[in-house]
């Protein structure tokens, strides 16, 4: 029997709930369990209500569930906010001070177990006991966090964890949430967030330079890169603003460093002129946009998929671009490495469009095969080039030899003005046409490299759910639930939304009885793009724009509404 347990830890910022969640997640993965974690910050409620959710069991899981089996309430507010979500037979773990009288409540006398600063590890051990985890993986996770240097801290944590576990053995009621033994433990798995996978993908892809201005939810990519910059030979620089960040990245790329920037909608708005500069000077740059709800500052710690049209059109003038939209942790890694390579090959801006949900969510994944990825090398070999060297030599495929300044005696001249083949500014109208065609001609390379959408399920489905980017997980789960009910549901997911090759998916759209586009915005941006490119009008849409990620329940409820209508 499959097992599917949803745990939610809620409390105020500073109560250590993220620590409990991360340590438990690590221990669960090391114990061979499948998990999916997501974080949420209810910044609109005074006092700040944060949650850390872990779904665990036999999985694999690609999204959180709305209903909760085990609720750990670090404050009374958590009880009020999440009481409605509790499943029948759910456990509710809270301090004796505010634990309610109801079946399944475990009122824990935390004050008797130890000092308040250790209550989070006490809760961790208690959860471990309830779930039937061996004590060692939890102790190891705590040790890894504090390090061997702090022996006395480790000792007091171990003491309260043992006490807490013993208390739970004697006081926890009977319940259904003991984890089944996983199949024989396989190879080590990585517990990665989307942003951590992007950072690893960038390093594997040959990244050498990143400039950024801090902005949620993109910052953690850069934090991860900086942690490894010295050992991996990267220069990471916090710029004075996002305009500087992208111009620095372009300058670095021009001089030979595979480069990226990472930001969110507002910061990307400032970068728009730089996107155009990369296109005109034909300088490779990878741009990661982690979406959050806008307009303007919007909801900074929440999620949305509403910047698709913005990223598709950002930058004045006409030029080709590619936009990847990862749907999983694995996609984040692979598409980031691919984006760096494609940026260099096409000498163009290439985008990775993700969002807060995917950025912060974690899931165990198999270690990546690093040998399968060739790190990008900047520029062309200066030997054997036709002379005189011309940076923007007109060629049939629009690609000119990109030399690096200072690499040889050849001079490299790049200009944001329209320019001649030498790179010097020109107002010749005939040349202008040739240069526009040259730049647009690179679209062919981008099209040749397109990652085709994936179809899960049969082509003549009764219901086809179309989605892009991070919606894949919850959409896939909703489809699986419907399929167990005897429906014929398929999922068409786009991990690249531009350029689109209609021949890759038009038939699939036409073959399904019903097509519904599921995307995290209010106006159906991707459905509109599909119609523009294929003429196929997707009749039904499910959008979400309350700041929260899709869940299977949300999608199923809205499908029912569509059918009722």
């Amino acid at each position, binding site marked *: 029997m499959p097992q599917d347990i949803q745990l939610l830890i809620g409390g105020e910022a500073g109560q250590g709930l993220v620590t409990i969640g991360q340590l438990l997640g690590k221990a669960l993965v090391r114990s061979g369990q499948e998990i999916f974690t997501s974080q949420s910050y209810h910044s609109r409620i005074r006092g700040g209500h944060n949650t850390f959710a872990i779904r665990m069991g036999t999985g694999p899981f690609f999204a959180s569930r709305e209903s909760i089996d085990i609720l750990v309430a670090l404050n009374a507010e958590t009880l009020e906010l999440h009481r409605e979500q509790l499943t029948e037979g759910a456990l509710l773990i809270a301090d004796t001070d505010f634990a309610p009288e109801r079946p399944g409540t475990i009122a824990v006398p935390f004050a008797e177990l130890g000092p308040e600063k250790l209550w989070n590890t006490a809760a961790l051990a208690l959860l471990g006991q309830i779930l039937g985890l061996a004590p060692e993986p939890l102790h190891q996770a705590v040790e890894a966090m504090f390090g061997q240097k702090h022996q006395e801290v480790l000792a007091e944590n171990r003491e309260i964890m043992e006490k807490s576990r013993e208390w739970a053995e004697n006081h926890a009621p009977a319940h259904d949430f003991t984890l089944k033994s996983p199949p024989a433990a396989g190879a080590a798995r990585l517990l990665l967030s989307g942003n951590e996978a992007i950072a690893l993908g960038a390093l594997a892809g040959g990244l050498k330079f990143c400039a950024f201005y801090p902005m949620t939810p993109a910052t953690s990519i850069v934090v991860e890169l900086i942690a490894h910059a010295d050992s991996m030979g990267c220069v990471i620089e916090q710029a004075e603003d996002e305009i500087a960040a992208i111009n620095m990245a372009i*300058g670095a790329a021009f001089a030979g460093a595979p480069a990226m920037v990472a930001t969110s909608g507002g910061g990307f708005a400032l970068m728009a002129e730089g996107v155009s500069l990369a296109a005109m000077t034909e300088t490779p740059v990878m741009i990661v946009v982690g979406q959050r709800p806008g307009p303007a500052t919007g909801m900074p710690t929440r999620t949305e998929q509403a910047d698709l049209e913005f990223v598709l059109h950002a930058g004045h003038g006409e030029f080709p671009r590619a936009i990847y939209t990862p749907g999983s942790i694995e996609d984040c890694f692979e598409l980031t490495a691919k984006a760096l390579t494609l940026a260099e090959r096409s000498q163009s801006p290439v985008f990775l469009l993700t969002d807060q949900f995917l950025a912060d969510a974690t899931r165990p994944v198999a270690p990546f095969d690093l040998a399968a990825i060739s790190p990008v090398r900047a520029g062309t070999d200066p030997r054997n080039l036709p002379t005189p060297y011309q940076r923007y030599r007109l060629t049939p495929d629009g690609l000119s030899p990109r030399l690096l300044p200072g690499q040889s005696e050849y001079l490299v001249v790049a200009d944001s003005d329209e320019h001649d083949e030498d790179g010097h500014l020109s107002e010749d109208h005939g040349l202008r046409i040739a240069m526009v065609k040259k730049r647009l001609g690179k679209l062919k390379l981008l099209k040749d490299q397109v990652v085709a959408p994936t179809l899960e399920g049969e082509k003549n489905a009764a219901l086809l759910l179309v989605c892009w980017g991070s919606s894949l997980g919850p959409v896939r789960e909703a489809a699986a639930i419907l399929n167990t009910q005897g429906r014929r549901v398929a999922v068409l997911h786009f991990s690249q939304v531009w350029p689109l090759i209609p021949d890759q998916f038009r038939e699939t759209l036409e073959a399904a009885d019903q097509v519904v586009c599921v995307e995290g915005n209010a106006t159906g941006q991707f459905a509109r793009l599909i119609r523009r490119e294929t003429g196929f009008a997707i009749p039904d849409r499910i959008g979400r724009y309350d700041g929260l990620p899709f869940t299977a329940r949300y999608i199923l409820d809205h499908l029912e509404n569509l059918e009722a209508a």
Partner: protein
Amino acid sequence: MTTIEDYGKFETAWCPGCGNFGILNALKKALVACDLAPHQILLVSGIGQAAKAPHYLKANVFNGLHGRSLPAALGARLANPELTVIAESGDGCLYGEGGNHFLAALRRNLDLTILAHDNRVYGLTKGQASPTSERGMVTKTQPHGAFAPPFNPVAVAVTMGASFVARGYAGMPEHLADLIATAIKHRGTALVDILQPCVSFNKVNTYQWYKEHCYELPAAHDPTSLDDALRIALEFGDRIPLGIIYRTERPLFEEQFEALKQGPLAGQEVSRERLQKIMLGYA
């Protein structure tokens, strides 16, 4: 040995009598004095009449966006610390549109040279007031005269702790060539604010006006004294001092990066072994 001929001769888009000619010639002389070959140099500019200067000599060139010469220059220098990087643009580009980058660049102190063609007016867009225009200068877009007092780049640079601050004048090409050569040789960010007439749009600060107001700093001026430098930097009115106003030694920004100790980033291999170890740290 590099000669001035190595830097070539180009037709320009500048008005006859433009101060830019003097600056271009001084730059070429300075590069020869530093014995730098064209391929060792990267000129990074923004947009404006001054920002076209890099097209008029042989060198590597990145002519980027208006206001953004400094971040692009910084990125290039951080990718390849073997390049001699010179950011060259006008007062509108460097002090107006790019003001934030100007402050940040001075704070960082990379080994790069900033040549600011300061004609105190917008030339390419035909004569609007610039950040350094005199108070009361009447233009089509400031019909009642420029209201705000002019930005003093030299004083700002000194107070920001810039490691080399100088002022030159396009009408004194020998003096200017010396200043630029010294700036290029300086280890750190070197600002040379270069006053220049704009014969088409600035009818106030003419060759005659500069002749009457500029004077060369006497040998007695000690540019290593912050107090003296501040006093001199704030002198901008009836008399305008020219020369090296301030210089000091500061650690180079580039030196903090481990990766740059191995030279240009382009030539460095990605270590799969180290990455494998990093990756397995997430297990």
